[in-house]
């Protein structure tokens, strides 16, 4: 983003007018999007935007004793947090399909309130990178019988690459997948220095990741359907996770990488399609997360996450337009109405039923 100091004198008014206009547009986009979600999806259909198929669990997070990351008021050494997590598969109600998998974390044991929430998905890069690209992504979904985003993949090769890196098929467990938040957040340390941070979660025992397609196809990436002669059921991953937690618990390593902010920041730093170089931005252990209790379907469905549940020093980076890479989190932050609409719908219409173990495969809507 250009700073006013770099703009020729005499054009500053025009620049600020542009900025104001951009921010107004962004606000309208975000608010309108949230409202549309609430009115047409969350309340009537009782759905989240994408990750309806999930399983929640609780445990604790202990921050490392000797942190290598910058000192911070929130993540103090040795501090423990109660934790509620939710693993999910995006879009479809069938674990055996080729889906993006997620891990969302609340540092509390409440389904709504929390001092810190973070949502992460598999794959180091995303499928979209700004508000405008996300809306295009939503518009071009065109889902039918388990095939979606065909036109989006054809037009936007970066989105296609994101889909190829994020999709997981036949993963053996939610536990061994690597989850990334992809978009950067603020990280202001106790030293007052402004930084940006990205987070990820990996298995604590470095178990190899499963479910990665070694040779994804450009043409067939839109086909997320189960394979022919599929033997895994619609809930196989959730059952595996439930058994694992009851049997031995699930341990994760919560990590962070930081980037010092600068005045002439290259906008690409905020681009969640651009992976920060690990040599310059090594992944540092934030804490160990231990999960020991599975929540039931009702509690899992009620559990919701929000980027607004973050300390100011660790929160969302401001965005200035719908093209801004930080506009994704801006839109997330302005979607409270959608979350609340969904919770309200459970009170009005009742809880949605669990996903049945039947032979109705490749579906994405409740009741199918």
């Amino acid at each position: 983003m250009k700073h006013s100091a770099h703009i020729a004198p005499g054009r500053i008014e025009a620049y600020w007018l542009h900025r104001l206009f951009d921010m107004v547009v962004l606000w309208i986009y975000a608010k309108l999007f949230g409202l549309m979600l609430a009115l047409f999806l969350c309340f009537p259909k009782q759905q989240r935007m994408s990750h309806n198929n999930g399983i929640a669990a609780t445990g604790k997070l202990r921050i490392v004793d000797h942190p290598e990351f910058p000192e911070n008021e929130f993540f103090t050494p040795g501090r423990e947090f109660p934790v509620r997590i939710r693993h999910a598969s995006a879009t479809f109600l069938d674990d055996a399909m080729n889906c993006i998998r997620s891990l969302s974390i609340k540092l509390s044991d409440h389904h709504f309130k929390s001092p810190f929430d973070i949502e992460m998905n598999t794959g180091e890069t995303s499928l979209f990178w700004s508000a405008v690209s996300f809306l295009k992504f939503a518009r071009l979904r065109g889902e039918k019988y388990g095939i979606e985003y065909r036109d989006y993949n054809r037009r936007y090769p970066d989105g296609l690459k994101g889909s190829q890196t994020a999709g997981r098929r036949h993963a053996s467990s939610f536990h061994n997948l690597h989850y990334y938040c992809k978009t950067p957040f603020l990280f202001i340390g106790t030293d007052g220095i402004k930084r940006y941070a990205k987070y990820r979660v990996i298995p604590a025992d470095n178990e190899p990741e499963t479910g990665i397609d070694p040779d994804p196809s450009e043409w067939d990436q839109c086909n997320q359907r189960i394979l022919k002669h599929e033997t895994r059921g619609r809930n196989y991953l959730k059952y595996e996770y439930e058994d694992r937690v009851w049997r031995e618990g699930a341990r994760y390593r919560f990590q962070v990488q930081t980037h010092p902010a600068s005045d002439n920041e290259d906008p690409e730093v905020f681009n969640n399609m651009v992976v920060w170089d690990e040599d310059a931005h090594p992944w540092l252990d934030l804490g160990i997360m231990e999960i020991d209790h599975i929540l039931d379907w009702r509690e899992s469905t009620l559990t919701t996450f929000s980027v607004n549940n973050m300390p100011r020093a660790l929160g969302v980076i401001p965005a200035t337009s719908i093209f801004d890479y930080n506009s994704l989190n801006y839109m997330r932050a302005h979607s409270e109405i959608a979350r609340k609409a969904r919770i309200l719908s459970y009170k009005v219409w009742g809880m949605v039923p669990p996903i049945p173990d039947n032979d109705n495969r490749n579906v994405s809507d409740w009741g199918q």
Partner: protein
Amino acid sequence: MKAKTVKDAKPARDGDPRDEKSIRAIIDQCKKDTRIEYRYGDGFFTPKMRGINYLELGRSKIINSPITIFIEWLYLKWRHLRDFVKRLEHAFFPRHEKIWCKHIDSHLVGRTIYEGDRGDGPPIHHLHLEFWGRTWLGSWRKLSEGKSDNDGYFRLPYDLRAARRLWIRRLYFEVHTTTRVYFHEKKPRFHFDLWLRREIAKSNLIGMDYNLRTIRLDFWRYREDAYTPRAKVNAAGDEPEHYSQGRIDALMSQVIPIELTKIKHLDQIELEPGTLTIPQIQADYPMNLTTCIEKHLPGYTRGDDWFGERMMNGMNRGTFQKDPKREGHYWIHYFGKCWYDHNEVYALPDVDIRFSLKENGLPKPEEIVLTGCLSSHEHDIWKKRSFAPKDEPNWTYAKRVARVNGAFNTEVEEHFAGTHLNTEQFAVACFRNLKLSPIAALLMPHMKEVSLIDHAADKTLIGGYIAAATALTKTGLEQRTRDIMGFQDWKGWHPMKKLSEAHTCARAEQLFWDIVTEYVDTFIEAWADLIKEHWFEVYCFSEDLVNHAVPVAFSAPQDAPPKGKRWKTLADRRFEYYCQQYCFDPTLDRPVVDGETKAISRVTAAKSFKDAAPEDWQNLKDACAYAVMMATYMHTWINEHQYDDLGEILYSCGGLRFGEKPEGIMAPEDDYDIAPDLVRSTQMLWFTNLLSRTEYGFITRNEEGDVNPLFSDLLKKKRDDFANLGVDVDAIESRTNI
């Protein structure tokens, strides 16, 4: 430009008209009198023609009604107004070179390939691509430009915010092609024309890459149904290239008088066939060299001296093969029907002419051998008959048969195949592949428009006049020209070697070749760095040339002569003769593609210059010089002398009919049963006038500024040398477009 239409010859000079000096003076005077000159000018209310593509063997679409001409005048005024509005639009809404980009954060990506009849064609490299936005007020803003890479992929960077500004109404992705080059301050400047414009919805641009996918271009494709490498030309005849306006204007203004003459004859033949004769048809067309000479020296053009002189220095530019048995004797061979598909109306025997050289260095015919049927009563295609000067009147008849066969061979083989089709294969490879390389500037001015004229020739000549006026059918002509193409190779080509100082044709050819090689050498050395940098284009040019070339003559199974000892002997004789005629070396190592040994040699097998073989640099020079030579001088020679040697119906024509008499074609000129019929007669003179009188695009005149001034200057320096050999340098065409 209108050509001079001289119908009356100047009186003979003083002195005995039969001594050599006087004869030479008469001939030179007749050459001056019948030389075609070009001047500009046009008049309103004169008949007009719609365009080159409206030329017909029958009645071309000509307008001669005053009312129609007036309406056409109004239409032309409307077109001028429309063009004026377009120019105004360009003036008010110019397209500046400035690129509107503050921060590159997005790209247009994709790939350009040739449209293929079955699936995808090969990639198109180095296409010039532009990305434009147009504002609500009509202004153009260039957002990006670039080129496709060697594999046809492109990645145009642009500023997303600049493209999505509110005041940008529409966005366009444009593909431009190099259509011509012109020289300004001695440097080549490429001119791009828009080939494809595709609108991009603003809402589709969301940052990062936007994939335009694979863009298939119907661009300089090879015809799938052709028997030689040919460009696919659209039905309107204006793609993949179009004639320059000057070329169209020149042809339109020059062809009208002869077109009206032809229409008059055709109408008369249709309505009152008995009222028109061949001499009357002849008299209605402009006088040619032989009719002019006959006026002063009756019978001279039927004599041995003229026969020998024209075989050596006329349109035929005969190839003299040494007689292995007689020292100082030479043979010219004109092959007849051979094994090609033919009709039973016209005769076309094999003609073998033996010459000795006179003291003045000109050839003297000693013997003419005719092999084949000479009448409709004969059926032995191998029957040989030999004639000598003592065998009058059959000697005179045999000379006529030789002239006719020679004219047929020259037109079909040397002219159409050897220059037109030969140049076209270089032209297609050139326009498909040469875009950034300076070789494009070297070749393009000489390669343009040939695909269009060949396309017109398919209909009017190969499938039209020649098939109706000679012994071969369309199928036979196609096969024959394909076989001749099987002898066309740049490697090892050299001009004809002179037999004597009187062999002015060979001397002029050598002189022009020296100029071409000097020009090409100088140009290539001057631009060596850039040529080497873009060697990939030279490689692709060579690959297209080779991959689409015909196989070496008679080598592919579908081109093989019929089985049998006599056919094989004939094929071997032809092969040996054509190898000399076209300087084709059969011992060279030739590329093999899909099991076929190709006639054309590779220029290079290396994609980059650092991998090129040492001889590739000279190969490039030789190939370019050859292409320029064929397109310019070799075509001009035949084209310019056509009317001299084919402008008198009874003197020579495309074919003699068998007729009904037992003597067949061995008959006097006043036997009209064997001469071309009336329709073919007027068509023949129409054609030869059309091809000779409507030329446009000369090296020294450089009407469109696209001929390198160096080439022109080198030619002008040798003006006197050429003039001494009877060649006007100002009449040498810069390309084959007629």
